[in-house]
């Protein structure tokens, strides 16, 4: 094997599998749990209206908005009716279990089990009334799924404090982190490409139109008519940050700026469009996954290098690595 190939395999292996601390995953776990708990608080008065067959979509109509073949509150209600529990009580119990699972997940107590329950119940609620879902639900679903499968309880958790989980760096933590990072890159690239295909993002009309929409309008922004370059600058900046994310979020030199840019972009959505939960959730993703270091100091880094070397020897013979090397 030529040294260049050997070096490449070594780098790729280190990039994806070098043992890492679970701190970024823990930051995501805590941030997501807090955001979803806030969302649950804001929706506490509407849960039955949104999901019950006596709510906004009454009778069998609610079934028209179920996602076929997936678990729904109606399905649970049918099961629980055998125990003489009403549909409303069943939905309240599911909602209560969902909130409890988020609390446990945020605290890192029985992290794996609570993450599985949080993901499943969030998915069930999403499937139960598709008409009410929006972007925040989609991203919560995506990252609850990842948290369920990743060792997110390996840092900043009661599981570690109580000695139930080891805080040692693991390859699984690194691999989980990389997959989530790539997902964010794909998401921003796809979003940027779609935005760039529309004229409104280039000529400044998009921000002007969005800020005038009653559902999003937080402030009187008609003064922007005298400063059209501001809306154009906003559109171009969004395109730059989203399209450039996949490139500039990786190098250390540009990473910090890009993290700040994404936080600003999404907090701007919170302030100027009132999309609080969506904006906060999105603003939290990049700093958690790219801003929190997964390294644990020099000693740990040396151990990482040794383990990576061992792993590489084991992986070199595997079909996956062989195919990438040829």
């Amino acid at each position: 094997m030529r040294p260049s190939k050997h070096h490449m395999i070594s780098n790729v292996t280190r990039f994806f599998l070098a043992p890492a601390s679970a701190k970024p995953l823990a930051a995501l776990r805590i941030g997501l749990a807090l955001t979803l708990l806030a969302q649950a608080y804001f929706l506490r008065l509407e849960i039955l209206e949104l999901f019950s067959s006596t709510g906004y979509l009454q009778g069998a109509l609610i079934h028209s908005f179920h996602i076929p073949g997936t678990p729904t509150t109606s399905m649970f209600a049918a099961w629980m009716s055998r125990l003489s529990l009403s549909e409303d009580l069943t939905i309240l119990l599911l909602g209560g279990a969902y909130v409890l699972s988020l609390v446990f997940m945020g605290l890192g107590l029985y992290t794996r089990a609570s993450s599985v329950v949080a993901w499943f119940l969030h998915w069930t609620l999403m499937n139960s009334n598709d008409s009410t879902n929006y972007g925040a639900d989609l991203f919560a679903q995506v990252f609850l799924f990842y948290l369920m499968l990743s060792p997110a309880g390996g840092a900043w958790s009661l599981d570690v404090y109580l000695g139930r989980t080891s805080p040692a760096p693991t390859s699984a933590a690194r691999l989980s982190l990389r997959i989530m990072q790539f997902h964010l890159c794909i998401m921003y690239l796809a979003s940027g490409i779609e935005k760039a295909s529309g004229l409104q993002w280039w000529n400044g009309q998009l921000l002007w139109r969005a800020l005038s929409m009653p559902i999003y309008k937080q402030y009187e922004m008609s003064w922007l008519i005298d400063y059209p370059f501001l809306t154009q600058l906003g559109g171009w900046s969004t395109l730059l940050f989203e399209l450039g994310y996949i490139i500039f979020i990786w190098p250390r030199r540009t990473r910090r700026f890009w993290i700040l840019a994404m936080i600003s972009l999404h907090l701007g959505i919170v302030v100027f469009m009132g999309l609080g939960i969506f904006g906060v959730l999105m603003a939290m993703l990049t700093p958690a996954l790219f801003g929190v270091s997964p390294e644990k100091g020099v000693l740990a880094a040396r151990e990482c290098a040794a383990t990576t070397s061992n792993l590489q020897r084991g992986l070199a013979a595997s079909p996956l690595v062989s195919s990438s090397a040829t």
Partner: protein
Amino acid sequence: MQTSRMLPILTLLGAVHLMLVIAGASYIDLSEFGPVGNALNYYGEMSGSNKSYGFFAPGVGAQARTRFEVIDAAGKSTLVSLERSSSHEADLRINNITGQLTANDGEEDTDDQDAARDLRRSVAASLAGKVFGRYRGAQAVIVRVDEFNPVDMPEYRQGLRPKWEEIYQAKFVQDTGIMGVPL
């Protein structure tokens, strides 16, 4: 099995998952690929890997709002909405539900048009029923859907202002169901 031995498999599964994320973001419908495609699509529903990310893309269109004209026994009418302003998050979701009254407006197939019209009517009846429940003295409820079309900057400079325009109306009375027809 030790974790280190599983790592190649996990890496491979992660790569497949990211391929599905790319397919989802590219609007590739996996259900066209037979049973395997259906299975992958179901996995996509579970994991969110089948979703696309076209938020505010390619542009911002119209916004709909739904209001309800409540008419009591004395013939007095009051305009109300379902949103109770308990939180913006709640109002946003209610707006998404009432938005079903304008969903699938652009269907070209006749069967799809019929299905969309039937669904709209059912949603309107359901929402009106909810309003009847909140306003016990109501004799009739008129569901009114308005559309807000934002105005571009050049038009705004020429004095044009955005306004709400009614696009759908249906009247419901106690016990007898729909009285009027959509506009």
